[in-house]
């Protein structure tokens, strides 16, 4: 029997954060994870995260994972891998299958941070090789360096479907379409927009009805759905794909809370059956906590804070943290959390379809929700996207209230302000000078900032875009500018390619286009 002050189950963002926090307070912590590698799903996440600096915004997920592991190692946190916790029993005793043996461990407190499992939808042929989960696509391309397929249908337009679609494009795959049975795109508009501008079509109110092929996927049949999500006969379309990728949501893995005897509740806003918890993540079983996606589906950035909150509570109860210090930290973490739990994608707004305008009162783009891109007349409703001054200046196509503010910190000249409420849309100060450095472009996790100079040369404008593909075109290259819908609209010449270490692999690619396309050209292709 191993004895510890705290047992953490799961070495993902919530679990590692909890373990680090507790170890810093002097607790003896053991972490068990069933996987061969720690980090949960963080190492698959190669995109820049949202939030503000305190939430690791604009850092790529796998870097956050590396930092967490380094902290855990420095503090001597014991992370047991290939260690599957099979149950939690009376007296906070856990049974762990480690390699070929079974061991018992006990602690004063347990934090369940087991994360989530992918949802699936059954359809004809869904068991064929070539139908994979979105997480599988990420594991193959981002961890193993193997392309999941050549041409992919993405089923689901939540943030996972959108982010993975973009990552598939980065890995060199084609994405034939992103479909969703809902009437609107589920994830962030900026994530959809960066996929749409490369030419990927979005089909909302569509589902996949069949995977074609004998021994593997050789095509997909999609169809429009009615108001009850049933396919409408006669609307079928066949797509030439070799892979169907499923990204239809996540469900909390709350089984261990069940074995511990915790009260459970079916809560759709939290993604399924979850333990009943208090503000510190403590379940109905004293000293058993649940943090991160296992307690309700959210982002990794919230999971990291939730892990810390449960850890300080456990530390306080066990005498490792004084009451005053606990209250101060708890308040600080609660404030940090509440910054992220705001805006139209916050958990309390999950499933809402009645929002028609931003907090500022600007009309939400209908096209962005239906097709993944802003229509020109919709863009013009947003001041941050339509500044017209002499010389280069940022155009920020940020049109939904998402908790994020790295653009504000990126500009050394104070051009961009988001303010304390980080879900607010950025405001551009036209009196401040823009030098065209591109730091704001690279800092925007949504890749929604462009640098435009309407009077670059007589008759020509320059448009600087975030570019995260290879090969990077060289200055002097000639090709086409694509509009927000991914359609070629005019000839374009690459006039500069800027990349610095601080831009963290987001290249500022500046192209010259005929002046009349300055507010339309948003992507470049050879």
């Amino acid at each position, binding site marked *: 029997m191993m004895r510890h002050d705290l047992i953490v189950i799961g070495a993902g963002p919530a679990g590692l954060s909890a373990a680090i926090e507790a170890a810093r307070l002097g607790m003896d912590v053991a972490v068990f994870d069933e996987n061969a590698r720690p980090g949960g799903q963080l190492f698959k996440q190669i995109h820049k995260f949202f939030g503000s600096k305190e939430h690791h915004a604009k850092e790529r997920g796998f870097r956050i994972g590396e930092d967490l592991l380094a902290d855990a190692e420095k503090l001597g946190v014991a992370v047991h891998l290939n260690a599957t916790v099979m149950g939690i029993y009376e007296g906070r005793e856990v049974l762990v299958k480690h390699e070929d043996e079974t061991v018992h461990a006990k602690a004063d407190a347990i934090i369940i941070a087991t994360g989530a499992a992918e949802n699936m939808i059954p359809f004809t042929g869904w068991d064929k090789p070539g139908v994979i989960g979105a997480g599988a696509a990420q594991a193959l391309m981002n961890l193993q360096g193997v392309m999941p397929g050549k041409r992919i249908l993405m089923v689901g337009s939540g943030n996972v479907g959108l982010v993975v679609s973009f990552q598939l494009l980065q890995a060199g795959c084609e994405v034939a379409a992103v479909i969703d049975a809902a009437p609107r795109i589920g994830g962030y508009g900026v994530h959809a927009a960066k996929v749409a501008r490369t030419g990927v079509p979005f089909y909302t109110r569509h589902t996949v009805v069949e995977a074609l092929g004998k021994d*593997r996927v050789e095509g997909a049949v999609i169809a429009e759905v009615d108001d009850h999500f049933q396919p409408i006969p006669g609307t079928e379309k066949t797509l030439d794909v070799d892979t169907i990728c499923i990204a239809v949501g996540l469900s909390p893995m709350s089984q261990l809370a069940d074995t511990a005897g915790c009260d459970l509740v079916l809560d759709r806003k939290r993604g399924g059956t979850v333990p009943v918890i208090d503000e510190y993540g403590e379940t109905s079983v004293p000293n058993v906590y649940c943090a991160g996606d296992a307690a309700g589906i959210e982002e990794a950035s919230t999971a990291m804070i939730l892990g810390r909150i449960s850890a300080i509570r456990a530390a306080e109860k066990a005498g490792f943290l004084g009451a005053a210090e606990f209250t101060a930290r708890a308040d600080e973490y609660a404030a940090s959390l509440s910054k992220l739990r705001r805006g139209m994608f916050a958990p309390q707004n999950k499933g809402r379809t009645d929002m028609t305008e931003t907090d500022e009162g600007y009309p939400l783009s209908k096209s962005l929700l239906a097709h993944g891109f802003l229509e020109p007349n919709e863009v013009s409703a947003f001041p941050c996207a339509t500044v017209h001054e002499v010389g280069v200046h940022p155009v920020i196509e940020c049109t939904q209230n998402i908790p994020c503010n790295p653009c504000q910190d990126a500009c050394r000249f104070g051009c961009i302000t988001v303010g304390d409420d980080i879900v607010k849309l950025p405001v551009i100060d036209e009196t401040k000078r823009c030098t065209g450095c591109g730091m704001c472009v690279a800092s925007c996790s949504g890749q929604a900032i462009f640098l435009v100079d309407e009077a670059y040369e007589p008759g020509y404008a320059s448009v600087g875009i975030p570019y995260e593909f290879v090969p990077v075109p060289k200055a002097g290259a000639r090709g086409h500018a694509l509009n927000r819908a991914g359609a070629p609209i005019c000839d374009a010449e690459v006039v500069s390619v800027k990349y610095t270490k601080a831009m963290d692999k987001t290249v500022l690619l500046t192209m010259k286009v005929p002046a009349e396309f300055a507010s339309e050209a948003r992507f470049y292709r050879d």
Partner: protein
Amino acid sequence: MRIKQHPIIDDYGKGAQISFTLDGKPMVGYEGDSIAAALHAAGIMTHRYTAKRHTPRGVFCCIGRCTDCVMIVNGQPNVRTCITPLEEGMEVQTQYGVVNREQWEADHQ
């Protein structure tokens, strides 16, 4: 197919090329590959055939949860190939039910 160049990831941490066999045929992969990744890179999609309806299965979740990708590895059936590291000289076999093809055919004569 392997990704030759990636805009964000510089290094997948792969080591030397290693040899293994699939149903007796020589194959190559790299240190750091999972068995499934090496097979996927070589275009192999079918890992097994189901016992009842004899339909093909391959990689599905790729995190060791769904067990769709299991194969016979060094004589041991039901090995989750997506989370099992590839090793030099491994003998990987397509799994038919819970046995290999020869056994399956002998059992179904």
